[in-house]
């Protein structure tokens, strides 16, 4: 059992938990993820490691409720436990392995969308710990959905916040901020790291491609085992098929086939996918998410 040391609601539908997992806390690096399972009948849910405390032996996860399992997880309180937490999975962000002096010569731009702010955070923190100031753009639908603002401000060089509806700081999408920084404010970046919803990463990549900034994205396809055993997580990058759990989850964003990745995510996810599933899965689609009507 993996004890929840702290459970907190960060914003509507977004939750943060510190979970006791000594082996993972000792071994993990920015960019990696875990798979959690609530109880003996639960699904295996992949979540990025958003922070870690090597001394306390704990890791932090931040998740958004989107379906049956994340809804159930949201109800867990401090002192409850997950039946299973396995990790760290995936590969650490590439910069972790680079020479620090070389790294210091590069200018990094981090772009976070929505709950993607959480996975960006440990990377920015790692940079700060190694004496590197990076620029960070955080986008949220609206002020109330902005998460980890203070924590991010502490670690970032410059922090640019934007909301879709203009309820806080800038108004507009993260892509507009990227353009503004580069085209109007004369900023130059050698690397962009964009993490958020698939659609945001896709458009961020279109912009950075135009601007000539190499871009890394972190993909979140459907997964089962997370160890390279099932192939559920396959994505096309350039001409190659990769397993996101063992070859990624971070890839060259300019090579990712986002169209295919988004279609594959729909398999068990979107309204559309759910409707299809309800029709096709019949009794085996267990519903319970309250959204798709699969359990009606």
């Amino acid at each position: 059992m993996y004890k929840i040391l702290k459970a907190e609601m960060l914003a509507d539908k977004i939750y943060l938990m510190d979970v006791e997992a000594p082996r993972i806390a000792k071994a993990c690096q920015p960019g990696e993820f875990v798979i959690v399972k609530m109880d003996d009948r639960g699904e295996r849910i992949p979540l990025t490691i958003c922070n870690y405390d090597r001394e306390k032996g704990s890791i932090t996860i931040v998740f958004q409720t989107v379906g049956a399992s994340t809804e159930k997880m949201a109800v867990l309180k401090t002192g409850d436990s997950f039946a299973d937490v396995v990790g760290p999975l995936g590969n650490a962000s590439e910069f972790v392995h680079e020479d620090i002096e070389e790294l210091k010569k590069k200018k990094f731009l981090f772009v976070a969308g929505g709950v993607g702010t959480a996975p960006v955070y440990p990377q920015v923190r790692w940079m700060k710990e190694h004496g590197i100031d990076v620029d960070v753009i955080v986008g949220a639908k609206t002020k109330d959905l902005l998460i980890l603002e203070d924590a991010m401000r502490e670690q970032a060089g410059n922090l640019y916040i934007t909301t879709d509806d203009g309820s806080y700081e800038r108004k507009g999408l993260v892509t507009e901020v990227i353009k503004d920084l580069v085209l109007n404010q004369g900023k130059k970046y050698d690397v962009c790291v964009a993490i958020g919803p698939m659609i945001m990463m896709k458009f961020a990549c279109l912009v950075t491609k135009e601007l000539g900034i190499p871009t890394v994205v972190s993909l979140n396809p459907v997964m089962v085992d997370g160890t390279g055993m099932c192939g559920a997580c396959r994505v096309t990058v350039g001409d190659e098929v990769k397993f996101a759990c063992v070859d990624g989850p971070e890839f060259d964003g300019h090579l990712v086939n986002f169209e295919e990745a988004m279609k594959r995510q729909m398999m068990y996810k979107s309204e559309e996918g759910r409707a299809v599933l309800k029709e096709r899965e019949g009794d085996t689609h267990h519903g319970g998410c309250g959204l798709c009507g699969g359990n009606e």
Partner: protein
Amino acid sequence: MDVLKKVPVREQDPKVRATNFEEVCLGYNEEEAKEEASRCINCKNPKCVAGCPVSINIPGFIKEVENGNHEEAAKIIAQSSALPAVCGRVCPQESQCEGQCIRGIKGEPISIGKLERFVADYSREHGFVPTAPEKTNGKKVAVIGSGPSGLTCAGDLAKMGYEVTIFEALHEPGGVLTYGIPEFRLPKEGVVQPEIDNVRKLGVKIETNVIIGKSVTIDELLDEEGFQAIFIGSGAGLPMFMGIPGENANGVFSANEYLTRSNLMKAFRSDYDTPILASKKVAVVGGGNVAMDAARTALRLGAEVHVVYRRSEAELPARAEEVHHAKEEGIIFNLLSNPIEILTDEKGWVNGMKCIKMELGEPDASGRRRPVEIEGSEFVIDVDTVIMSLGTSPNPLISNTTNGLDINKRKCIIAEESTGKTSKEGVYAGGDAVTGAATVILAMEAGRAGARGIDEYLSSKE
């Protein structure tokens, strides 16, 4: 009784079992077992034993069954096999023990697998349990992976007095026995779980959710956690795909994904959360045990199922019993056919599979006749789901993160057959991780060899 024929084994009716996940074969009862045992002529030079990879004293245990001494029979089997309830069910007997049985020349061979299974089930039901040694020798050994090779190695070492910890990446132990082979062939609660519990009763600790190479490395286990030797039994779990157009469409799965969702995550039960696609028409590509298991699982989930295999029936690598059962249940075999493209609708879902007809040409390196395409013979099978079952290879995670551990070009760990010794001191390996995808009994035997190798190594270090 016709001595030329096997005592028939009771099975669930094909029509009934096609809709449930209960075990297909019900096994012999005491009376039937006795009767079947009496057919064995107790050969002086038993060919059957030579056919069994672990050389079980087959006439010996069969004699005890005939005399009703089942506990004695169990002891004889235990000298050579740690997982009889499993092997009796899943060994390819027709090409091993039974394939050599002298009775098979004129009539049907002795039903050795079914008798072995009977003895194992009988001992479980009558509570013959192994006991842990009273005192351990204080030496710590780590075993990676809890499939048949890891479980056997751990059990043997524990019996010799070692303190053994198994590290397993998944949340449940058992390896392929748990996540791959379906319930209707190998019941989890009834058969696999008790075998694992027996290993625990010997004092073996099992730590799940630990991925060696990620959560902790082999070097750390040796240098920081005080393990003096390591056995790697991490299997060959990496699925292959064909690389044909449309393979990433929604509705194309690896057999591993399909079976893992169904077996490990129990997606076929509505009280578990993991979903699985209930398809109308499924094509399973491949002809091995894994393909049969995926096909029969899809059938039970309500689909019409086609097995698409590029050679002919004679070359099907699956166990004969599996092919027979699959046919009885209504699986359709499209032989001498090879997929060349998966067709999709505008939303990215599978809506057909284009294949080409094959004919058998000259024998290839493996001695099997090589299938060649018949030009212009393309045709489309109307399916909404495709399950790729083309084989698996070892996961490179451990070899990539362990200094000085040599692998061959198939990514298999290089190890000595008789001891499991690898290129790295104190590290032993066996099972599918070494041989590539093989069988339960071979993995088990490799676990035994590894335990012997580790014992020799640690004894010589004193």
